[in-house]
């Protein structure tokens, strides 16, 4: 008798996920069926226990430093017309007002991610005033011909963002050395057309060279989705990427470039 209700059905009942007719069926069967009631209780009591156990966390005061930092962040974003209070050396950081983003049906990003693998000098684009080559149209998604991007690669610490005029929003993700000990940086770029690209650029003969680019598509919440980054993982292992540099090590490495 009780076997006609699966565990999943009972769990869904305990979680309020069933329709009224489905609920009625279970409630009818519960009368006089202690085994069924006990199976159901296992689901409702674990829900209750988990909820009770985590309730005190909501009453734990949010640390003042965190709260004021978020409040500042909110004020910065909501008062987009106010002058940016950032110090002078950060004057290329602007509070980005919300911008229109791709709002269509959510794409299956794992499939939709168009992956452009840019390996080495074959299609890599050496930046130099003397040897500038035309970028392969449609492939170069992180165009190093833009001086602002080159500056950002040299100056923005990992974990920080810069809004780059005519380029988009630049996010430094991590710095590491490849197996030949060249300095590489992983970064993301939210481009003006609302696409996000994830790239790896490495130093070679004093120049930044884009080694890898994934067009992560237009995530509807604006960051490269984890699912589209498998190719990046594979690439990083292939080039023998070392551990991410610590903030201090990164600072030193970047300073040595200047």
């Amino acid at each position: 008798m009780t076997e006609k209700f699966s565990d999943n059905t009972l769990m869904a009942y305990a979680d309020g996920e069933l329709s009224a007719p489905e609920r009625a069926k279970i409630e009818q069967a519960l009368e006089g069926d202690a085994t069924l009631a006990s199976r159901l209780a296992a689901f409702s009591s674990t829900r209750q226990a988990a909820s009770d156990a985590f309730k005190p966390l909501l009453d734990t005061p949010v640390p003042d430093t965190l709260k004021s930092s978020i409040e500042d962040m909110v004020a910065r974003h909501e008062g987009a017309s106010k002058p940016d209070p950032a110090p002078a050396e950060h004057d290329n950081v602007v509070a980005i007002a919300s911008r229109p983003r791709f709002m269509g049906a959510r794409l299956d990003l794992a499939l939709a991610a168009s992956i452009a693998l840019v390996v080495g000098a074959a299609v890599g684009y050496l930046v130099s005033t003397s040897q500038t080559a035309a970028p392969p149209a449609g492939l170069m998604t992180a165009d190093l011909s833009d001086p602002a991007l080159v500056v950002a690669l040299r100056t923005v610490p990992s974990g920080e963002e810069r809004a780059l005029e005519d380029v988009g929003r630049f996010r430094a993700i991590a710095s590491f050395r490849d197996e030949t000990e060249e300095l590489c940086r992983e970064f993301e770029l939210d481009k003006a057309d609302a696409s996000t690209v994830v790239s790896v650029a490495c130093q070679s003969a004093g120049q930044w060279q884009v080694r890898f680019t994934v067009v992560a598509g237009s995530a509807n919440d604006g960051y490269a989705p984890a699912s589209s980054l498998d190719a990046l993982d594979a690439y990083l292992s292939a080039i023998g990427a070392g551990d991410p540099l610590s903030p201090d090590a990164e600072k030193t490495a970047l300073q040595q470039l200047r």
Partner: protein
Amino acid sequence: MPPTFGQQLITLLPNLRRFALSLTRSAPAADDLVQITCEKALVNQASFTEGTRLDAWLFRIMRNAWIDQLRKNKTAGVSVDVDALTDITGDDGRTQTENTLMLKATRAAIAELPDDQRDVLVLVCIEELTYQEASDVLDVPIGTVMSRLARARKKLASVLGINPGQ
């Protein structure tokens, strides 16, 4: 005047911290993650769909940001402190009653769950998301949400001595 997006965000800070703590199991890492999440949320608030749950949308951003961090740090080795989740709360210095011991035991049992089971348990049973909302946050089908949730509940029940069918 309805609360602004930013005000709603601040109101949800305790919930964001709670989920962050469950993901990171480290108080400092949790606070960092909350910051990152709020920044991303503010930059991308135009993509939030009015009429849907803001907390679910934020949890999705948070979890993806956390996975991203794990991916970046995996070669460096992430230190996870299982005690962070159990010690952070409920210890107000008073004599521990049977009840507070039970709460601690429950938190410990949840902390020990595999990550994917814990995520879904926290979202559904603690943050009270629907299966559909949890499925959107985690980017997995509802069937997967349910099977992970059932496994998590069974483990929790057995640790806590709740025996079904007896």
